[in-house]
């Protein structure tokens, strides 16, 4: 049981480039989430999904897109990278809404 896996672990992007952060979970969880954590701040919800084919915006969705074609995968897309998107990104999943969330190890993204 790998839990929640994220790739890549680190990435440096130039302004205006695009990339996809990958997230996969093998726990058959319906709920999946993307957070970003800026220095000294808590986790801010970017997007979430309550099941395959269903996604919705969180607190800070601007500049990001998601898709959920399968239960296992929840990729996060950055279309036009900006320095304000420099952050650590965490993917998480949970069995239901108020259950504990299981987090991946994070992706550290720097936009220069």
């Amino acid at each position: 049981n790998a839990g929640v896996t994220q790739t890549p672990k680190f990435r440096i992007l130039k302004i205006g480039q695009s990339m996809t952060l990958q997230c996969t979970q093998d726990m058959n969880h319906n709920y999946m989430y993307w957070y970003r954590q800026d220095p000294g701040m808590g986790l801010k919800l970017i997007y979430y999904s309550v099941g395959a084919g269903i996604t919705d915006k969180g607190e800070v969705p601007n500049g990001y897109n998601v898709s959920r074609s399968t239960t296992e995968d929840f990729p996060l897309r950055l279309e036009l990278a900006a320095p304000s998107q420099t952050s650590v990104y965490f993917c998480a999943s949970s069995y239901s809404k108020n259950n504990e969330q299981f987090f991946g190890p994070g992706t550290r993204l720097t936009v220069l």
Partner: protein
Amino acid sequence: DQQVKQNSPSLSVQEGRISILNCDYTNSMFDYFLWYKKYPAEGPTFLISISSIKDKNEDGRFTVFLNKSAKHLSLHIVPSQPGDSAVYFCAASSNTGGFKTIFGAGTRLFVKA
């Protein structure tokens, strides 16, 4: 607007003593609270939770206390161990008031041997 506040950025405690981490919230719709622990270069891991119908939940060395009237919860770690050194996040959610789980900014705990 910070709905979940952890006002102490850091806390230093001697090994064997009690660590008390505090968390305040503003939204009375929150009815479920969680604590997560995070080591450097890892994702947060769930530690303990409490529902608003309780005022205390205990799991081994970890106890969470909830004071609904004060909108305050605290995490007690007794006895503290060097391996407890990590960042602790308080989180709150609501069954009725919308979906989001709101996280505090975290408190970094140092347990000195």
